[in-house]
């Protein structure tokens, strides 16, 4: 399998605090195409920082993040915007849909920024909303959807533009068990069908149980990296 993301000696230290905080310490990892990975660890272990750095939202203090043979740590902000738009899908904890757009408009939004043709964009958005079981909610605004439904729209949005990988920061944290399982089923299925690499930060055992790889961070360093054979 092809390597999608590779980190080499990744470190991040926050110096704008009274005492420097070493959020990430010398992390070297590889993520292969189609992997379903959970980044786990206690609060403050560096999960979100790790996702931010590999997602190009934050710069490492040291080390490399190589995606598609490019070290994104050396990219300018304007290049990173484009890079994120073309290569990465994001799912956030608090759904974070645009409240004034309907479900189908939310899903189309990233493709719109990518300047995809309108017909292709609409067809893909419909397809993704069908995939997440919301074909009857295409024209509903987020305020009329439940938390679980909103998060499914967020997943559809993240996957619609066919990114190289999807970063999900605690996507099930605000969901009840039924909605969480439903979402995880959908994500697992899309991971298989679309062969998209999924990387979650989570301390939700329900997510960890579904993952085929679990990386445990403790105090900013990799404590364990386990590959779990689900077959």
């Amino acid at each position, binding site marked *: 399998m092809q390597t999608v993301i590779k980190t080499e000696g990744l470190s991040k230290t926050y110096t704008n605090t009274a005492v420097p905080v070493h959020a990430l310490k010398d992390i070297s990892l590889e993520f292969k195409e189609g992997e379903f990975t959970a980044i786990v660890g206690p609060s403050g272990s560096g999960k979100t920082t790790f996702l931010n750095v590999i997602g190009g939202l934050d710069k490492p203090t040291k080390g490399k993040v190589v995606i598609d043979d490019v070290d994104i740590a050396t990219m300018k902000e304007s290049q990173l915007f484009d890079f994120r738009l073309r290569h990465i899908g994001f799912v956030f904890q608090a759904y974070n849909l645009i409240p*004034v*757009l309907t479900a189908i408009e939310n899903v189309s*939004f*990233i493709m719109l*920024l990518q300047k995809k043709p309108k017909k292709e964009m609409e067809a893909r958005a419909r397809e993704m909303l069908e995939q997440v079981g919301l074909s009857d909610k295409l024209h509903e605004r987020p305020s009329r959807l439940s938390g679980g439904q909103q998060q499914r729209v967020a997943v559809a949005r993240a996957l619609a533009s066919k990114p190289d990988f999807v970063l999900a920061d605690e996507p099930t944290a605000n969901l009840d068990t039924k909605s969480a399982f439903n979402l995880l089923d959908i994500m697992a299925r899309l991971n298989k069908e679309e062969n998209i690499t999924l990387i979650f930060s989570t301390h939700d055992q329900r997510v960890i149980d579904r993952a085929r790889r679990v990386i445990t961070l403790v105090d900013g360093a990799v404590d364990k990296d386990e590959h779990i054979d689900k077959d």
Partner: protein
Amino acid sequence: MLLILAWRNLWRNSRRTLITVSSVLFAFMLATALISFARGFQQQMIETMVRQETGYLQIQDAQYFDQPSLDHTLEYGDEVRQALEAHQDEIEYTVPRIQGFSLAAKGMSTRPALVTGILPQREDKLRKLSANMVEGELFSDRDESAVIGEGLAGLLGLSVGDTLILIGQGYQAMTATGKFRIGGIISFAIPERNNTAVYLPLERAQWYFVAENRLTNLIIMPKDTEHIGPLANDLQSMLDREWYSVAVWEELMPDVMGIIQMQDTVYTGIAWVFYIIVGFGIFGTVLTMFYERMQEFGILLSVGMKRRLLSAVGMLETIMIGIMGIVAGALVSLPIVYLFQRFPIRFSGEMANYVLQFGVEPIFPFILDAQIFLTQAVSIFSITLFIGVITTIKIMRINIQEAVRNE
């Protein structure tokens, strides 16, 4: 999509947006009404002053403006006549005058008098002198009698039929003396004029001043009062600059222009107070909208929306508030200004008396002028743009991670 996004964002909190738009509407309406009234007032003042004093254009002796004396009168000869004939299609009529100070006397009493020689029919056309006659009649062109101000008549104890004696200096230091039968008494609202005015038929006045065929001012009333500059230039080009000067009313009445400029400054200042208050209103709304959506902005930037696109949405939202306010303001202001143009404000009581002192009728129609609306629109739009730029700068400076964590 950006337009749709901006438009829908505005209606997330429709009440707040409506209040902000209303504040723009009221500022626009108040500013427009204020300026329309001010312009109406000024136009009334200009109209009155132009008619009573200077006319729109004047031909004078080249030195008369700086040294207004009978020694600097102009000869109403062929050169002037030819220039006027060449532009007769643009000129409605002319009003010749000769004017100088003298002493008016009756018995042992003397008073200073401003003696003006006029062609009564032309003068009447300009400023309706006959309407102000309180006793007797305005003389005819060939008459020999005089008309004096009511105040002067009172001060000297003169009435219609009495003899007025004038003593003064004529053209080139000649002695000017004359006896004139008083044919009428005229009243003016301006006390200074009422106490000094003496009118004589033009030829009699020229005889009195020993200035045959000479004028101090030749007033020109053009057909098109909006474009007097080109006519003045054309006339001047046909007249020898060494002897003749063609001046427009703005040059002839620098005091009035000063008052108008001062009023403009005051009214524009007041309008800007409205704008600034409204500007703070819009700024408050936009700022609240900005901070309320900080997390959303962070998410949009995270997923790859470029800062300039997000800034464009912010800018569009601000501009839309401004445009809605301006359009609503114009729609509300238009009938109000139109109404007060058709049915002008009439001052009464002391206010009316005060205005009348200056010979200005206490009726003030609003001016319905697209330029006024346009100026207010551009001013408010500029403020809106400025606020939009501030929003844009704030969006450009968003820290994505902090914004995403913002709840």
